[in-house]
């Protein structure tokens, strides 16, 4: 067990425990806050996978953008301590059961599939410049489409949220 493996387990815990809390905590505000940890954990996983730029972007977008937005929405939309804000437990049983079954199958498939792994043990290279190259050459069209999507989302959100 190398140091990397240890870090993997640590990051996995950082990801999963808040995610668990996020899903099962009755208070939506706590759920939102716990997402914070989960997103950080995923960023750590990215680092472990040698995706430095992705990890940074994860922190920036998810933690800095999306999470803040969600929290805003939570607070804007509701008296956060209100009684109705609590979710009842009963509703979680069936989804949980089904989720467990699904998880079982997924893990079974993951473990039984003969993965064709071609991992080399080179030290991970910085990816930023290569990603930039790829985005502006091979993936130019999706890149542009993504920008249009963002623009559309921007305009759409403004139009939707603008009070009449």
């Amino acid at each position, binding site marked *: 067990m190398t140091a990397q493996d240890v870090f993997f387990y640590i990051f996995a815990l950082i990801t999963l425990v808040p995610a668990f809390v996020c899903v099962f905590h009755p208070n939506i505000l706590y759920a939102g806050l716990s997402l914070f940890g989960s997103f950080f954990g995923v960023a750590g996983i990215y680092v472990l996978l040698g995706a430095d730029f992705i990890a940074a972007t994860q922190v920036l977008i998810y933690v800095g953008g999306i999470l803040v937005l969600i929290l805003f929405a939570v607070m804007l939309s509701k008296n956060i301590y209100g009684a109705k804000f609590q979710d009842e437990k009963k509703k979680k049983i069936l989804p949980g059961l*089904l989720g467990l079954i*699904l998880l079982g199958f997924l893990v079974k498939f993951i473990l039984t599939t003969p993965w064709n792994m071609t991992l080399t043990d080179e030290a991970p290279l910085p990816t930023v410049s290569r990603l930039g190259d790829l985005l502006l050459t091979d993936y130019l069209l999706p890149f542009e489409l993504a920008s249009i999507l963002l623009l559309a989302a921007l305009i759409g959100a403004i139009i939707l949220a603008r009070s009449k």
Partner: protein
Amino acid sequence: MLESLFLKFLPSLDPMTSAMVMLLGMPLLGFVIQIFIGKRLFRGGDWVSVGTIFVSFALSVLLFIDLLSSGPQFQWTTSWTWIDLPHFQLTMGILVDPVTILMLLVITTVSFLVFLYSIGYMHEDPRYSRYFAYLSFFSFSMIGLVLADNLFALYIFWELVGLASYLLISFWFEKPEAAEAGKKAFIVTRIGDVGMFIGILIIFFETNGLLHFDSIFSYVAKGQFGGEFLGISLLTLAGICIFLGAVGKSAQFPLHIWLPDAMEGPTPVSALIHAATMVAAGVYLVTRMFPFFTPEARTVIAYTGSFTAIFAATMALTHNDIKKVLAYSTISQLGIMMMGLGVGAYVAGFFHLVTHAAFKACLFLCAGSVIHALHTQDMREMGGIRKKMPITFTTMGVATLALSGIPFFSGFVSKDLILGESLSFAMENPSHFLIPLFGFLSTGLTAFYMFRLIFMTFYGEPRDSKKFDHAHESPWVMTLPLIILSLCSLAIFFTGSPLGLGELSLWGEKSQWVKYLLEPPSSSEHPTSAHLYALILSLTMAGCGILFAYLIYYKQTLSSEKIAEKFKCIYKTLTHLYWIDELYEWAVIHNLLRLNTLLAHFDNRVIDQVLVDGWAPITISTSTNSGDFDNRAIDQMLVDGTGKVVRASGKEVRKIQTGKIQQYLLVGLGAVCGILILLTLV
């Protein structure tokens, strides 16, 4: 003369063709100008129509002079391919022969005079220019009808004159009666036309596409026209079908009902269309197709004609509407012509058409003049206007004498010929004695009702003094045509001899020009031994008729009321016109409407029940109560039924659509899990 004229002015074109196209085209030009810009022209553009018809008239006269000099063998024809498909051609062509030219002369003369007359008669009408447009259109169609060289072209113009007649009858369409009459005329004549069309179809089928008159005749003459249908030879059947067209157009029994109603139109129209030209088109058709009719078909024609003659004459006896009396008289006279053609008197029948056109147009125009002066058509409100309208009285008197068949007048010549022929026909075939009998009886009746008309209108005391005071003689544009037409009603005009029996011939054989120009297609003319009897008999009948009329309506020694009282049953039948209209109303229209309603409910009742039981037990409960027309069976069963099944099942299935996304997802997830479990188990 005509040819040289055209060669001089239009040297590059074929003179005869251009003459004919001009003859036909001038009224059309008049129509087009009038319908589009007539209102804006000076005097409503009447001069355009009169001018154009005058050109046609002049051309016809020139043509006639040419014909007189070239003799009866004259024939000129030309044709163009009109519809050209593989293995199928239809041609359009012009055929000019003596019959055509005589018809042209009649049509253009009467048209021209009627146009002239209409200037006076219609001058106050708000739709003055439209009236002239329609008249021009009628002249165009009528000229086209006689110029046509094949049956199909003839049929086309045949329908077009029907249209013109419809438009002119319902010219004063604000009057519901006029609108109704126009419709009735068009539909009733169309029933005959359909018969004629079927005849054309039979001929077309039998001769493999020949519709040209001459080729049909030669085909028939060669005996190639075979085939039978229900024991009747197809040739006879085709002839009767063609004759049906003539029955409709010439208002023969049983399709005569439209003509009296057609008197709702303006009087000049009645004179032109419903007395002189269009109704004579049926006679023209029979003349034109004369060689085509088999003896059996001719017998049918003769019986129809003679029966119509007497039948219509009796109906004219009791009518008080001056125009309707004339209308029934027209029907009766057309019957006489048909009878003549039926018994084989080709020349005589056509001759009577020509003379009748002149004097009957004159009678109608005179009646129009009277109506114009008195503003009524009811003879009971007239009387004593002889002094006030001398020209009208004189001309009408001349025409009446002509119609009654009195010597020195044209009607005598032609009618006598027909009656003589029919008599000799009956002498040869005694079983057909009814034909001449009807003919002679109708002569007597004709004389009676015509003189009744004269006496009631012009003699006696004025019955309505207010109208009487208002009366005055018509202007010259109206009286001039009357004078010309009455002159044409004199025997001398047709025979060159005053009495009309050929005792003097002022200009040799050409003086009897109608007889001279018309050649019977086969030697069907009978020896004239019967003519003397016929002459005596018809004169006696006419004399009796006049005498009775004189006694009843002038001297009033016999009271008309008393006679009516005595023969109440007959009188009632006559005033109701034999209940023919009522019969049709009941038999045709009533049943037709019932059939309509029946068919309208057809889907509801019949298809419905059949389809219900057979097709869709699922939706049986929803279908049977459909009562109205639109909720049809097929709809309810197949279309709406399917819809209802879908809707009902949808209603059940819809319950799982809760609108809760999470439930959907849950079901989806469950399904995924289920599938996975199944996959691992299998």
